[in-house]
């Protein structure tokens, strides 16, 4: 257990965390503004990854793939918002869960029908591959470092958008009092479509970026979706800041837990039990974290108490 290993794992945790943030930010924004729980958010992540893999595979350009991912996810998001989601804002959470569950079934099987059951591969571009040397003698893959940078840049951009622009003011106003801003002449249904498409684009971007280090396959969005739920439960639903802090906490806990829990258990039991029990407990670490946050603060770290 050296300094270099620990530093690498912290970077891995950060990378995982910022990608979770891209998912969680869209979810929490959609819930905050429209009061909608969207299970199909993971499908938009999958749409982004497939679009990127298909376009990058056809053109050979990773950047075009990213553009395709953002566009495809945003368009898919806008379409389902207008066709289905719009009818659900006034419905109760149960109907929202079922309708978006139905959307998952349609998206997953539709993708399987279009692309087949075999995973696609999205290659890391040449200019982002290979390791870089960081201070302290750490060798770290450039692409993962770029993911951390991209995630942080999107987080900053999102903060600017929400705090410093006209659209952002409308979004924040929509969270507080949707009737009032409708009365003030803001086209609320267009704003909702826009917010939904923005959340979808973030999910699609995350899918494309992560797609290059994992395989692109049907159902890839669901584990991420559930982790994003854990993130926003920890951070507090509706809070972008909460999503950011929660995502980093979950990313670091999950990555570091897998490394350190077996090591810690080795101090008290024999190595083979320590590694098997440690692996099981590590897979539960984020849920234990979530339980602790819930016991201390039932509405999450940055959630409103209402």
């Amino acid at each position, binding site marked *: 257990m050296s300094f270099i290993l620990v530093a690498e794992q912290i970077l891995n945790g950060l990378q995982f965390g910022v990608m979770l943030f891209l998912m969680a930010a869209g979810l929490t924004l959609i819930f905050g503004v429209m009061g909608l729980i969207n299970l199909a958010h993971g499908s938009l992540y999958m749409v982004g990854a497939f679009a990127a893999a298909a376009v990058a595979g056809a053109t050979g350009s990773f950047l075009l793939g990213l553009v395709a991912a953002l566009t495809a996810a945003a368009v898919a998001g806008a379409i389902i918002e207008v066709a289905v989601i719009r009818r659900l804002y006034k419905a109760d959470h149960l*109907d929202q869960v079922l309708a978006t569950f139905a959307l998952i079934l349609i998206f997953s099987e539709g993708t399987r029908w279009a692309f087949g059951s075999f995973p696609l591969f999205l290659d890391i571009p040449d200019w982002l591959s290979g390791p870089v040397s960081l201070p302290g003698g750490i060798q770290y893959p450039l692409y993962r470092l770029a993911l951390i940078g991209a995630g942080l840049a999107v987080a900053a951009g999102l903060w600017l958008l929400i705090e410093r622009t006209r659209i952002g003011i409308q979004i924040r106003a929509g969270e507080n009092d949707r009737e009032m801003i409708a009365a003030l002449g803001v086209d609320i249904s267009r704003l909702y479509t826009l917010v939904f498409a923005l959340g979808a684009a973030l999910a699609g971007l995350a899918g494309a970026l992560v797609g290059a280090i994992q395989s692109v396959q049907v159902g890839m969005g669901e584990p991420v979706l559930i982790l994003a739920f854990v993130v926003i439960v920890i951070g507090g639903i509706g809070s972008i800041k909460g999503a950011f802090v929660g995502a980093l906490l979950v990313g670091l806990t999950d990555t570091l837990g897998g490394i350190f829990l077996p090591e810690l258990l080795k101090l008290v039991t024999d190595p083979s039990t320590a590694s098997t029990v440690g692996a099981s407990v590590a897979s539960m670490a984020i849920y234990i974290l979530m339980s602790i946050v819930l016991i201390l603060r039932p509405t999450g770290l940055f959630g409103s108490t209402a």
Partner: protein
Amino acid sequence: MIPERLLNALILAGLLAVPLWALAADEPFTITLATRVVILALAAVGLNIALGIGGLVSLGHAAFFGIGGYAMGILAHHAQTYTALDLGLFTVSGTKSMPVIWLVATLASMLAALLIGLLSLRTSGVYFIMITLAFGQMFYYFAIGWAEYGGEDGLSIYLRNSFPGLNTLVPIHFFGLCFAVLCLALFLHARLAASPFGLALNAARQVPGRAEAVGLDPKRLKLLAFVVSGAITGLAGALFADLNRFVSPTMFSWHFSGEIMVLVILGGTARVMGPVAGAALYVALEHWLGGLTDYWIIFLGAILLLIVLFARGGIVGMLSGRRQAGD
């Protein structure tokens, strides 16, 4: 429109008639399909108590289904390998006896439901949905990592477990057994819904503030409903594992939680026979559409979407002409 009482009797009679016809026509596969309907309906009856009467949108009921399944898998695995089950303080031997397995499955899922309920009921609304989903997923990953009991591959049981006085290997015997359990659960639901507890729970769902003001404790009522609900779904898990003679982590997967919720809604939320009608339709669609196309799930999704958007009361609601249960 058909009165709901008559409709309920027709649904139950239909569910009994199909396997009896299959027995006469010598089509054992149809009996197995009917058994599948019965067991899925039982799981959904469990969820219907929490969801329908208590208003608890639990997206983690696969946890109880899986716990029931693994209770059966572990006990039968130790019995068929003649190894002792080490419980830390003492060891027990495995068993192939269904009544014992059912007891263990029910108790284990009750315990899990109590723990999950205690934590999840600290919150409500969307938080509750996400937290139950996350806890369900926790069990899923735990089962995948549990190498002692097959990890990702799961456990196979060579012979179906036994029940005194019946030959469970004969499909119609096993169907009859499951059907009897389902009838008991339906009876329990009907009695529970009409009992002081059910009425109080209904009040706690509709107007928690007023329920509290008249001296009821909404949280305790909901916790009790959640535990009863988990126990029934857990029992269904044990039966499901026995039907397939196989348990695997997929029993814990959140897709299954979504599916049993779909069964409840297809049939009609909070209606006694809703889960039975929903499970029958689901298995029929799976069988019929699945024969037409490999991508039948797309059509299932579309049907589900249409029902949620346009037919709120589910099948029982449409046929009986009453949109809300208990109108």
